[in-house]
């Protein structure tokens, strides 16, 4: 390396120093605090304790974690089923149209999450447009649509669908459609061609989308908080509550690391699956 080049390298130091300090230290703090004791008025006392980890295995918390996993799994599945047709359609559109469609999917994605959730809160509310429509059609009392499990699932799908569409589209867009044509020339039915050719080739995009949806759903606390009222509790709500309401930082930290471990295990499993395929 020349002298000039090594000067050149130093230009990267501010970013690297920044990320080590403001990413490394907070992450290390989560680990440190999880091993400390809760102070009398919240905060931390630096006395070593494994108490927070012991509480992780309480049936109540295991229940919340497994329900979050189930919801994240359901959301991933729904996003895949709903995302595939539109991604396929985008990939088979003209080049000009493709650019416009990607932008069309990106815009809701970049709209603030609270704005998007508020829109659903407004639509599903007791006196919202959906309920007034239903009441004028069928009469009777407005239905309880908001603050239900269904509302949370709807919100989760709405929020995470672009995470599935975009990687899927990116894979399908590069797919060699001649292979699909060849299968059909060799008398495969469209159905066979889809399941034997298109779907296996779309797998990398499907996996990438599934990972994104799954990880982001597990880390979500706003959707159940806003659309579920207090009726649907996910791992994220538990963590939020421990830090900001109960001010039990050590337990909150242990829960966060527990969540990270679950996410890590999921990623690892996905990677092994992908390697096996």
């Amino acid at each position, binding site marked *: 390396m020349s002298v000039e080049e090594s000067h050149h390298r130093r230009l990267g130091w501010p970013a690297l120093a920044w990320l080590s300090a403001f990413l490394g230290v907070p992450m290390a703090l989560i680990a440190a605090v999880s091993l400390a004791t809760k102070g009398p008025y919240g905060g931390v006392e630096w006395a070593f304790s494994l108490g927070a980890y012991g509480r992780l295995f309480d049936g109540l918390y295991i229940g919340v974690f497994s329900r979050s996993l189930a919801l994240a799994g359901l959301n991933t599945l729904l996003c895949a089923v709903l995302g595939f047709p539109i991604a396929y*359609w985008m990939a088979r559109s003209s080049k000009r149209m493709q650019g416009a469609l990607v932008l069309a999917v990106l815009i809701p994605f970049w709209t603030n999450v609270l704005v998007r959730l508020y829109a659903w809160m*407004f639509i599903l509310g007791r006196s919202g447009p959906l309920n*007034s429509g239903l009441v004028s059609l069928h009469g009777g009392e407005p239905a309880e649509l908001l603050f239900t499990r269904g509302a949370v699932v709807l919100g989760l799908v709405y929020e995470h669908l672009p995470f599935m569409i975009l990687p899927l589209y990116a894979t399908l867009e590069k797919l060699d459609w001649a292979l699909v044509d060849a299968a059909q020339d060799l008398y495969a039915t469209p159905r066979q061609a889809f399941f034997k050719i298109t779907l296996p080739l779309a797998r990398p995009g499907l996996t990438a989308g599934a990972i994104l949806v799954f990880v982001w759903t597990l880390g979500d606390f706003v959707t159940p908080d806003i659309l579920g009222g207090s009726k649907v509790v996910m791992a994220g709500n538990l963590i939020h509550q421990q830090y900001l309401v109960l001010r039990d930082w050590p337990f909150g930290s242990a829960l966060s690391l527990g969540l990270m471990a679950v996410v890590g295990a999921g990623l690892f499993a996905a990677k092994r699956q992908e390697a096996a395929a």
Partner: protein
Amino acid sequence: MRRSPWLSAAGWATLAFLYLPLFVLVAFSFNASKYGSAWGGFTLSWYAKLFSDNKILASTWNSAVVAGISSALSVVMGTLAVVARGRGEEAGGRWQDAFFYVPLLVPELMLAVGFLLFFGLIKGDLGLLPLVISHTTLTVPLVWLIVKARFEKIDPRLEDAAVDLGATRWQAFLKVTLPLLMPAVVAGGLMAFVTSLDSFLISFFVSGPSTTTLPVQIYSMLKFSISPEVNALSTLFFLASFALVVTAWLLQGGEDAALH
């Protein structure tokens, strides 16, 4: 394979699903009737109300200041890191890349919690500093990713040619590489700005009573009630991100399209 009409129907239906709630939200921000979905005539009064609400004005100001400073910081640091890294695929480069990929893979809630502990353990009033620091950490990797994508497309021989013609390395960088990089730098800055403006989780965990940002303000408003004022505020917020994202998109894609 022939394109079936069912496929495009499914595509359009999914787009309708993505956009319908936003259209409903926007439409009802102009509704004169305060309660429910009965149409009470067209009004701009909810927008007028926003501009006399001091809490909203203060949180908008906070959001703008934080987004401005953190996107400027991340543009400088992110772009420098791309240039410093160069094009090499050697181990050192890939080891550096990990620094930038990790924040993109860690759930935002974890970052939020980490920052809460970090700034919670530092006693004292830090004003907007915690927001600036946490948002910059979130946006540096984003700028890096966008600028890097463009940097890799620039032919290194262009800079070499300038040097052969008598420019110093520094001049060659300033006059050749940087101008070619500029659309991505601006796009990266815009995306960093939107990301900061957008960030709710981290701001929610880090901000204090006097450092509320716009999303945190919206959160407390919609926890309290559904009102057309929130519709109006959400509409403006939606339009702001819409304009920024479309501009960034055109900057990134416009020139690529011209090359094809």
